[in-house]
């Protein structure tokens, strides 16, 4: 049964635009569809798609952004995953790392478990919560023309930035990344730190 979202943007087109000309960009993806989305755009050593730890994506991005303040860090996650770790918005609001962006692909449903409605589908205002947490740049993205400016903003490192991107609730073919977590961690570390990463 097709589920309706108030959003109309296509998730893989959005992610494809956000990850275009990615340069030094480091990407953490929440488990489920966002992990498949970043992989569909091309697997990359600077991608860490999560297979678990629901609710942790934003705080992983925070720790990485604090450790590498000169590199842009992008967390791409879903509304359900973000709702499970809302306290992270407050923790990010306190630390305010300028190089961190959190983009929530909001389809108002739990896509991996049978398309049950999330709180955003009942009207909970995630972007408003990010504003209230003290995150200085908050964007609400509904139109295709707003996606390329979001990509540019992520590379500006003048955040922290939070974007709620309203997407269609379409279910797309899975594009699975490697699922060996040690590999995923080691390859990102090596891409940032060089071979020295493995001698720490």
């Amino acid at each position, binding site marked *: 049964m097709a589920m309706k979202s108030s959003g109309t943007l296509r998730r893989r087109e959005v992610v494809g635009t956000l990850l275009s000309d990615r340069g030094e960009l*480091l990407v*953490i993806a929440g488990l489920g569809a966002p992990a498949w989305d970043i992989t569909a755009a091309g697997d990359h050593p600077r991608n*860490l798609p*999560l*297979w*678990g*730890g*629901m*609710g*942790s*994506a*934003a*705080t*992983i*991005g*925070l*720790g*990485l*952004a*604090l*450790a*590498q303040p000169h*590199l842009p860090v992008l967390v791409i996650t879903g509304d359900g995953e973000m709702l499970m*770790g809302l*306290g*992270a918005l*407050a*923790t990010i609001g*306190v*630390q305010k790392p300028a190089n961190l962006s959190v983009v929530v692909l909001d389809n108002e449903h739990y896509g991996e478990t049978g398309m049950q409605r999330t709180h955003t589908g009942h009207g909970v205002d995630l972007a408003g919560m990010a504003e209230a947490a003290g995150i200085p740049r908050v964007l609400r993205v509904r139109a295709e023309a707003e996606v390329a400016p979001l990509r540019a903003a992520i590379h500006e490192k003048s955040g922290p930035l939070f974007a709620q991107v309203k997407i269609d609730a379409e279910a797309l073919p899975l594009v699975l990344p490697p699922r060996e*977590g*040690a590999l*995923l*961690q080691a390859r*990102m*570390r090596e891409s*940032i*730190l060089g071979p020295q*990463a493995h001698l*720490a």
Partner: protein
Amino acid sequence: MDVAPAPTATWPDELFELLKAHQVRQVAYVPDAGHSRLIQRCLDEPGIKAVPLTTEEEGIGLLLGAWLGGERGVLLMQSSGVGNCINMLSLSILHRTPMPMLVTMRGDFGEFNPAQVPMGNATQTVLEAMGTLVRRADHAADVAPTADATLRMAFNTFRPTATLIGQRVLGAKTFGKE
């Protein structure tokens, strides 16, 4: 509430020196009386980013992110917070991320508050069930050597480790009832 270390206790300062010696750059914490002096020293140290959390499980994510970016982190919490971290510890096992935790115990030795006992009594079992290497210190002189050992095992062997600082080290708060 729990009990802050006596001003004459040296182990909080010894823990701070250990964090510096191990080149720890990110210290995640949920405020705790037992760790109050250590937290303050970390906040005062320019070489350390002390990050207050809304819940302890955020610290597991933060430490994974720190390690991805080449920084060492430590999570400070009390035993009740361990219960908030359980599923997140799978991240450390999956990715082989060093994840050292320094845990002050409640519900452990002469506890007054009944609500602290279930989690305090389960802390070590639950951590070990999630693959965490756990060592205990029940005397002040053992705190720093035990923490040193678990920090080494976290950073050298890539896993979650915990030092449990026994309530016996801190004493139990009695809320005015002796």
